[in-house]
């Protein structure tokens, strides 16, 4: 048994969930969340992030493992006793009640006195600037207003933990950005612990103290946003968060902080070994487009290769070059738009270079290769 993590407010310990008995929706999911922390579960749809939320809220039971809330296992605690505020994907406001009645519902269930309910509801509505909408029905309000009402309802009974399941998915872009800011502000002001589920990496970056990236039921990496971007530990995270170039290569030699890999039978790339282990043959090398240098000063970077320009896109503050390099025909380079830089045109042959430390050698778990590697 693992030690009980004293500082964790929420802890998933090797939690698994299967709906049909054969495929695991969530697999060995372990995650600790500290009190007051904002943690986002990020991943493509169907990766099991919502299932994790449902298990924590008490709507689903884990098939294996245990979830702890405030140090106590919640396996036998019914959903209505967990005192967790939940904001659902499509708000799940009660359509037959006014907004004020919706907000009063959790307080009534807790046996709060009439006066206290009235003041609590008013305070919560003012908090999300919905004071004048108290007597409206959900259907009489816009999506953004309904969203704010749903958030107010999840906060009105002052829970220690709030879960949000893609709460901004149905809103348009502009509104989404406003709401992100508002959610962050509320979370910090109320010092509530927040677990947030989204498939939008931008949203995760803006909101979270830490992000847990999930894929196919498994946690890929848990880290603060900047670490996730700069130091992805798996190929999935490297590709999912931001843009990345990928070169597939054969590992030639590797050490503690440097490895070499042969790419496309042509070049030898030096890289920083992140997720390569002894015995690995294949690796995926990733380089962020903005870390690639155009025509680098000789000797300044370990990796310099010739590339053929396919396309150049002018984006104001930067240029985006699509080039063919070491067999990758979609190698992307972002170059800052600065004065005195010679024009780059499609068809040109250019030199591209990058530091060995900016090139991360990751697992080669791409589906195409694994099927090729299998002999039968």
């Amino acid at each position, binding site marked *: 048994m693992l030690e009980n993590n004293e500082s964790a407010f929420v802890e998933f310990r090797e939690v698994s969930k299967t709906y049909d008995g054969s495929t695991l929706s969530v697999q060995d999911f372990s995650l600790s969340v500290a009190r007051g922390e904002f943690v986002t579960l990020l991943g493509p749809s169907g990766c099991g992030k919502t299932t994790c939320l449902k298990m924590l809220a*008490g709507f689903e039971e884990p098939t294996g493992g245990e979830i702890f809330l405030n140090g106590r296992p919640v396996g036998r605690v019914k*959903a209505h006793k*967990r005192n967790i505020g*939940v904001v659902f*994907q499509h708000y799940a406001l*009660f*359509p*037959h009640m006014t907004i004020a009645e919706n907000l009063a519902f959790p307080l009534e269930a807790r046996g709060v006195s009439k006066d206290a309910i009235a003041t609590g509801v008013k305070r919560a509505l003012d908090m999300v600037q919905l004071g004048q909408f108290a007597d409206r029905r959900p259907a009489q309000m816009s999506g953004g207003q309904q969203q704010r009402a749903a958030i107010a309802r*999840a906060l009105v009974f002052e829970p220690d933990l709030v879960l949000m399941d893609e709460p901004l998915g149905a809103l348009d872009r502009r509104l989404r950005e406003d709401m992100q800011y508002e959610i962050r502000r509320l979370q910090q002001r109320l010092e509530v612990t927040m677990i947030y589920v989204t498939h939008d990496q931008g949203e995760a970056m803006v909101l979270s103290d830490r992000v847990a990236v999930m894929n196919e039921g498994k946690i890929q990496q848990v880290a603060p946003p900047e670490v996730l971007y700069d130091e992805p530990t798996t190929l999935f995270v490297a590709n999912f968060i931001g843009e990345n170039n990928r070169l597939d290569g054969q590992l030639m030699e590797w050490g503690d902080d440097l490895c070499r890999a042969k790419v496309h039978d042509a070049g030898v790339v030096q890289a920083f070994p992140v997720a390569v282990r002894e015995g690995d043959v294949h690796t995926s090398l990733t380089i962020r487009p903005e870390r690639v240098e155009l025509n680098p000063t000789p000797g300044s970077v370990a990796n310099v290769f010739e590339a053929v320009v396919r396309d150049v896109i002018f984006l104001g503050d930067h240029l985006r070059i699509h080039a063919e390099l070491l067999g990758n025909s979609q190698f992307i380079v972002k170059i800052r738009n600065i004065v005195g830089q010679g024009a780059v045109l499609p068809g040109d042959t250019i030199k591209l270079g990058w530091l060995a430390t900016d090139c991360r050698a990751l697992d080669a778990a791409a589906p195409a290769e694994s099927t090729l590697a299998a002999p039968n």
Partner: protein
Amino acid sequence: MMGKSRTQALLLALPLVAFIGITFVAPLGSMVLRSFHDPLVAEILPKTVAALGEWDGGALPPEGVYALLAEELKQARADRTIGRLATRLNRQASGLRSVVSGTGRRLARQGAPPWAEALPRMNKAWGDPEVWHALAQAGRRVTPTYYLNALDLRMDADRGVTQQPEAKRIYRALFVKTIGVSLAITLLCLGIGYPLAWFIAHSPPRRGRLLLVLVLLPFWTSLLVRTTSWIVLLQQQGVLNSLLTWAGIVADDQRLTLMHNMTGTFVAMTHVLLPFMVLPLYSVMSGIQPVQMQAASSLGARWPRAFRRVYLPQSMPGVGAGCLLVFILAMGYYITPALVGGQSGQLISNFIAYHMQTSLNWGLAAALGSILFVAVLMLFLLYDRVLGLDRMRLGS
């Protein structure tokens, strides 16, 4: 001015309007008309009825009236309409059938003025003022008689409305019983149908579809077959009684009477009407997202509170629609009680059918039918006033 497209639309709708008019409005209208408009006596005995209109209603009508009656009865016999007249008058005052047809027969062979003496000699009933009153009443084209009869009332000789003698009072009690039984069956259907619809609506799609088919299956079976199956199950030598006897729960000589009484009507009608409750409920419930109940429990509500405050109010449109459907159908149900209801399990519709088919008292059948129609209509309006028809939903 009417646009061309509007004219076209009206023309396109014309066949439908005609169809509704011919198959629905016209029969219904003629039925309602029949319940208070009865020109039979006035048409066969026009002069007598007219003369009776001027009669002061004292002891006996004058000689002129007797003469006219004799003449018109002779004519009616020649026209072969006297049988219908006799039947109709017998309904007004029992015994008049033989009086009229007997008098008709004798008038064909004999009789001479003064008729005021001749007629009472042929049948002494013609010397009774009550008979003349009955004739005068029956002669009115517009008559409240059928409605009065349908409400266990009758018209006196002095034209006051009084209760029927106790032995003949049946319809008011029957209306009350029909409404009571319909309400009880509606509640039974709701009690069984609500959990059933809940279960179907919140089953996994495959199982839900299968269960829905099972609910609908009886719809595809003839009503007669379904009702007859209940006879097989419920009769004294039937499946259920045999099982109970076999299990030793009921002694062989004390087999339960489960049909040809109210029990049979209740069981079979609840079964027949259940789909009408389940379908609207299912359709409304499947529109209620499961996340609603999750939201309620995450907000701290136990299941009963969540159900009462969140689920039940949202399912009410289905409850309303289902109850209204079942209740209205039950009010007019006829075949099932006729087959399994026996003597005590008969409802108002069975008496309407009896008067339509057996006693041929169409006026009374029409009056009973009209009262039933108005009663249902009033309940419908009451429902609208209390719950709101616009809140009723057959689908989501």
